[in-house]
C-alpha cells in the first residue's frame, strides 16, 4: 500500500508528467487559457490515461510478451488508446449528456496527447509489474497533469491583465511561467526518501 502511495506521489508531484517528463505540452500550452476548460481537459485526459494504462498493461503482460510479439507494442498501444478514446466518447455521449456537453470537445484531441501514450510506455520502462501499480501510476500521472494544467490556466488568466511586452505575448510568456512552475515542482524531489 505504501509502495502504491509512493508511486502515486511520484507520478503526480515528484516527477510530474508535464513539468518533469514534458508529456502533454501541446494541451498544456494550448488549452490552458481558461480555468474551466483546463479542468475539463485534465479530467478527460486522466480518465483516458487510467483506462488505457490498465488496458495496455494487460495487453502487454498477457498477450504481447507471452506470444513474443513485443515488436507490435507501439502499434498495439496506440490502437488501444485510439479505441479507448472512441469508446469513452460514445459512452459519455450516450449516458452522460451534460458531461459530454462540458468536456466532450476535448476527447478527440486526447489520442495525440503525448501523456497518454507516454504513461502506457513509462509503466514498462519503470518496470511496474502489477496491474495495481500500473493503474495507480496512470491515474496519479493524470492527476498531476490536471494539477499542472489548472495552475497554468489560473496563472494565464492573471497574465491577461498584465502588460506583457509585445514580442513575449502568447507563447513566450507562457513558457516563462511554465519554467517557474517547473522550478517550483522541482522542490518536490526527495520527498518520501529517508
Amino acid at each position, binding site marked *: 500500500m505504501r509502495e502504491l502511495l*509512493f508511486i502515486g506521489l511520484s507520478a503526480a508531484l515528484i*516527477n510530474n508528467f508535464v513539468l518533469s517528463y514534458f508529456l502533454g505540452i501541446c494541451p498544456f500550452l494550448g488549452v490552458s487559457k481558461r480555468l474551466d476548460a483546463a479542468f475539463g481537459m485534465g479530467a478527460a485526459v486522466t480518465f483516458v490515461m487510467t483506462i488505457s494504462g490498465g488496458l495496455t498493461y494487460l495487453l502487454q503482460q498477457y498477450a504481447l510478451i507471452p506470444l513474443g510479439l513485443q*515488436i*507490435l507494442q507501439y502499434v498495439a498501444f496506440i490502437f488501444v488508446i485510439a479505441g479507448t478514446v472512441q469508446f469513452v466518447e460514445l459512452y459519455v455521449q450516450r449516458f452522460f449528456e451534460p458531461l459530454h456537453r462540458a468536456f466532450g470537445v476535448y476527447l478527440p484531441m486526447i489520442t495525440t496527447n503525448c501523456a497518454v501514450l507516454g504513461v502506457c510506455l513509462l509503466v514498462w520502462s*519503470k518496470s511496474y509489474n502489477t496491474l495495481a501499480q500500473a493503474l495507480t501510476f496512470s491515474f496519479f500521472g493524470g492527476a498531476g497533469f490536471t494539477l499542472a494544467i489548472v495552475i497554468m490556466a489560473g496563472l494565464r488568466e492573471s497574465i491577461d491583465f498584465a502588460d506583457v511586452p509585445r514580442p513575449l505575448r502568447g507563447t513566450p510568456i507562457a513558457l516563462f511561467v511554465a519554467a517557474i512552475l517547473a522550478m517550483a515542482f522541482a522542490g518536490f*524531489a526527495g520527498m518520501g*526518501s*529517508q
Partner: protein
Amino acid sequence: MFNPIHSFLRQSWLVLILASGLSAGLAGVDSALRDRIEENSRQRLEKAVLEVVPGGSSSEPVTIAGVAMYRVTDDSEALCGWATPAEERGFQDRIRLMVGLSNDGGRVTGLTVLESSETPGLGDRIQQPQFRDQFIGRSTEHPFVRVKPGESAAGQVDAITGATISSQAVINAINGQLTLIRKELASNPNTTAESQP
C-alpha cells in the same frame, strides 16, 4: 441485396493490405534486429560486471540466496569475485548500481552506476570516482554509514556535499544487497550455485 462481407471488404481492403504489408515489414525488422539488440544489453551488463571485479574476464549469471547476480572468473576459470546489481530509490528517481565483491563477499572490489537521474552537478556526482572509490577495498563486515564530508573513519562514507539523499541511497542499496547475500558468500567461498540457463 446487401452483403455485409462484401461491403466490409470494399471499404477496408486498403487497410487490410496495408496492415499485412506493414506487419510483414515489422516481422522482418524484428527478426533481423532482435538478436543484436539483446546482445547490446547483455554486453552492457557484462561490461559493468567486469568493471567492478578487477581481473575478471568472463561472467555467468547465477542465483544466490534468491538474488540474481554474476559469478566472475578469470582466464584460468578460477573464481575471482562476484557482481550484484543493487537498486534504491534516490532523490529524483531510482538508482541502479553494480557492486563487485571479493570471493568470500568480505570486501567491495568495485562500484559502478548503471542508472540514475539525480540532479546534475549534485546528486549525479555519485557517478564520479571520488565518491565511488570510497567503497573499493572496504570490508563488508558492518553496514556502511554516511557521515559528513571529510569526517569518515573505518566503515564510514563521506557523503557528497549537497547530495545527502543521493549518497544515502547508494549506501542503502549496497547495504541492502549485502544483508541478503553476504552470509551465503562467506560460508561457501566457491559456491557452485544454481546457474541460470
